[in-house]
């Protein structure tokens, strides 16, 4: 007779993704990088592409992501991940290649590389972590820093007359013909995390099906550099970032829609 206890023991309710290593991350308490890594790893496991995937990591807090993903990986110069990914993907057409980049890496120093990777319709996937600040260098203003937001290089708050306006890069990339899938999600609540995973699944499937460039922007927390607690930082995303960076599908190409409808 199977007891309730046996049943519980046999039912896997939680598993370490095969696409993640057992290495503890260096991320700060309350940082959402860990959640983003796990979601990507789950998607890779579910698509059963771990041995065929190469990750291109950025300069920034995620510079050590190659230690955490159980994948072949390279570490790109600051902002150049889409160019390196292009070199890898073109050379290994049957491999899955994705970049994992922060807002400084992708939306400041790497704008040319990301825009032209999209314009060429490179069949790669980009996971874009937007936490509105430079994390690794200690909290400077990013291209995505909100108007009025205090950082160490905008100590009186971002003055748009001096520092210009934040860049909504995913909306911008959605305008490019080569982009097949460009959406923004957030990691501030369980509901949004579930939606984020679905978007990542669509983005990787877009590449697996050879459709073209896909990007998922994830609004993320940086309690350390924002100077607030982890719970408050999740609320800060919801209250301040989401109104400025709406959680929308900015582009879902017909080819992706067809793929999603299972046709």
């Amino acid at each position, binding site marked *: 007779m199977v007891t309730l206890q046996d049943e519980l023991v046999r039912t896997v309710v939680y598993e370490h993704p095969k696409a993640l290593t057992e290495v503890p991350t260096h991320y700060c308490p309350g940082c959402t990088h860990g959640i983003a890594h796990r979601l990507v790893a789950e998607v890779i496991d579910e698509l059963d592409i771990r041995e*065929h995937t190469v990750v291109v990591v950025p300069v920034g807090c995620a510079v050590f992501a190659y230690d955490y993903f159980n994948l072949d990986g*390279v570490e*790109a110069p600051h902002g150049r991940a889409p160019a390196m990914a292009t070199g890898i993907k073109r050379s290994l057409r049957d491999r899955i290649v994705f970049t994992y980049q922060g807002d400084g890496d992708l939306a400041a120093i790497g704008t040319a590389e990301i825009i032209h990777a999209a314009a060429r319709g490179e069949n790669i996937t980009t996971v874009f972590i937007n936490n509105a600040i430079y994390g690794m260098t200690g909290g400077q203003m990013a291209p995505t820093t909100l108007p009025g937001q205090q950082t160490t290089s905008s100590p009186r708050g971002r003055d748009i007359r001096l520092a210009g306006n934040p860049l909504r890069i995913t909306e911008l990339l959605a305008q490019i013909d080569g982009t097949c899938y460009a959406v923004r999600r957030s990691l501030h609540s369980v509901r949004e995390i579930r939606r984020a995973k679905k978007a990542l699944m669509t983005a990787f499937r877009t590449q697996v099906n050879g459709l073209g460039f896909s990007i998922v922007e994830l609004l993320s927390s940086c309690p350390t550099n924002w100077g607030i607690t982890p719970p408050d930082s999740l609320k800060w995303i919801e209250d301040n970032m989401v109104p400025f960076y709406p959680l929308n599908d900015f582009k879902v190409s017909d080819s992706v829609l067809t793929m999603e409808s299972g046709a």
Partner: protein
Amino acid sequence: MTAQLMKGNVAIAEAAVRAGLQAYFGYPITPQTELLEHLAMRMVELDRVFVQAESEVAAINMVYGAACAGVRTMTSSSSPGVSLMQEGFSYIAASEIPCVIVDMMRGGPGLGNIQPSQGDYFQVTRSAGHGDYRPIVLGPASVQEAIDLTILAFDLADKYRHLVFVVGDGLIGQMMEPAVMPEMRPIRPHPDWAVDGAVGRPKRIITSLNLTTEGCEQANKRIQARLQIIRENEQRSAEYDTEDARILIIGYGTAGRVAQSSVKMARQMGLPVGLLRPITLWPFPEDRLRSLVDNGVEAILVVEMNAGQMIEDVRLVVGRDVPVELHGRMGGAVPLPDDIVEQVQEIAAQIGLTRASVV
């Protein structure tokens, strides 16, 4: 195989294809654009990779990616574009992976002009980016040599897992000469360090990040040890009339080729002049230079198309033993054989060589 009339840039491009080039990434810039144009046709025809990048910065990082993926890869540019690529060179050197870069140098600094120059000697033979390393640099003086050295560049890059430059100028790149193209080589297999998907094996990482002092110093020592092996084994040079030379002209590429005419003219005047033409700019052919000075060379004239860059390497080897003078032209000017001979005559007088004393 019969010789065909070929333009330098096209010859280098086709030689790269024959050497098994699998992925090319570049950006148009004069005077190397025919190289990119030839590959735009040939690589696609052969179902290999050709991408015209959005910048030289992107091009070298695409090369970096392709090199990590384990394929034979290269880019080509000219001086201002090579300046932009310095970031990528440094990362590639730190990652200890092979690639080939062609630099068809032009007059600088700045936008300068598109005339022949050797103003990049420092930029390519020193570090070509931040940190401690030197790329292997090959300097052809003819279309045939450009073909041969392009093939060699790929082999050396693989052998030492290092960057190899082939440097020329508009004259080498645009000139047409008869040359023989080698047969097509098979594509080489992926090396056992390539990041090409962890199928049935532990994952591999290629990174230039080395946060600990010990780790970073170890990585540097490993690179320096390898450079020392290159320095001991890969010095190459060509010579003309050096057997009894008492005045030695040193010049590479276009300058070396012009200087060869000067040697002939000086010999007709009865002056014991010879030419040492470095083929590897790094490693500089210091052993051969040392032995020539030990065997009777009394004075040296370095001919360069710059304000005097290679002359520093010459002085490092023999600067304490013999006088070393410069014949330098800048801004895209090519030295003239007569002008070089004139300076050779002055040097001959200074060291007490007259036609009579020689005969």
